[in-house]
């Protein structure tokens, strides 16, 4: 059996990234769009940890921890915006969120 190398992890991360991009670009529900962004962030941090293993140092893992911090901040602010918007417009559909469209 082929041994598992960095390349295998990169392929998995690329698949997760593309799935997240598809979710961001096609779904209507804002909550699910935010979840797709979490998928993308996970793909990136999987890449970082795989490279950390490849080079044998810990910098990639430190950056993965920072990405978790970033994801927490992004989820909190994004969901706050979502609740504020839902209070005003009674909708969470991307198609109907076009206040800034001229």
């Amino acid at each position, binding site marked *: 059996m082929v*041994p*598992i*190398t*960095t*390349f*295998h*992890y*990169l*392929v*998995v991360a*690329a*698949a*997760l*990234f*593309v*799935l*997240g*991009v*598809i979710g961001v*670009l*096609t*779904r*209507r*529900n804002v*909550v*699910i769009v*935010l*979840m*797709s962004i979490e*998928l993308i962030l*996970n793909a990136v941090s*999987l890449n970082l*940890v795989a490279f*950390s*293993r490849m*080079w*044998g140092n*810990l910098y990639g*893992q*430190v950056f*993965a*921890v*920072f990405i*978790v*911090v970033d994801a*927490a*901040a*992004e*989820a*909190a*602010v994004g*969901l*706050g*915006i*979502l*609740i504020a918007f839902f209070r005003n417009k*009674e909708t*969470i559909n*991307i*198609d109907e969120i076009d206040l800034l469209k001229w």
Partner: protein
Amino acid sequence: MIPLFISALDSALRQPAGIAPFLISFVAPANGEMAPVATPFFFYLLSGLAVAGGLLVITRHNPVHCALALIVTLIAVAHLYLMLYAPFVAGVQIIVYAGGIMVLFLFVIMLVNIERASKDRRFNRIWPVGLAAACALMGLFVSAFVKSRALFPDRMIKLPEASNTQEIATALYGEAGRMGQYTFAFEIASLLLLVAILGAVIMTKKRI
């Protein structure tokens, strides 16, 4: 299959030292060092789980089902971190992501989930364009990976697992009174979290 198992168990029980050394001999070689067991099998199992969870996230109708599928993906990725000798990141992934952020998501789904939304169309009007763009991105990944396959060496360096948390802490906090390599970035990250908390509270409050 079952008679084979029974005969193996029987021969194990007949051994003078009992069954425990027999079971351990499956996972650890004789010199006492734990060797990775069936790495390709677990890699393919976990990455299959992660990708299947991602597929469910972007296709399910009900946001709660999407959140549960995302939790499956997050836990599978956490186990992939464990296979990459990153136990601290795996723990952070499970505690903060699956335990914290997903609970936040579920709360917001409860707050804003209206009946009409679950009967709505799942995909927006221009979904073919989005799908085409994502396919172009996938083609870019495939061509880049095929062309640059030689850039990624096949070696996988075994990182020390027991001191992993300590070394990450040294990089983040520094040691013996000196600042670590990422201490400044760590402080900035705490500031980012503070700003995010304030922003979330201010935007969610009805009137300030």
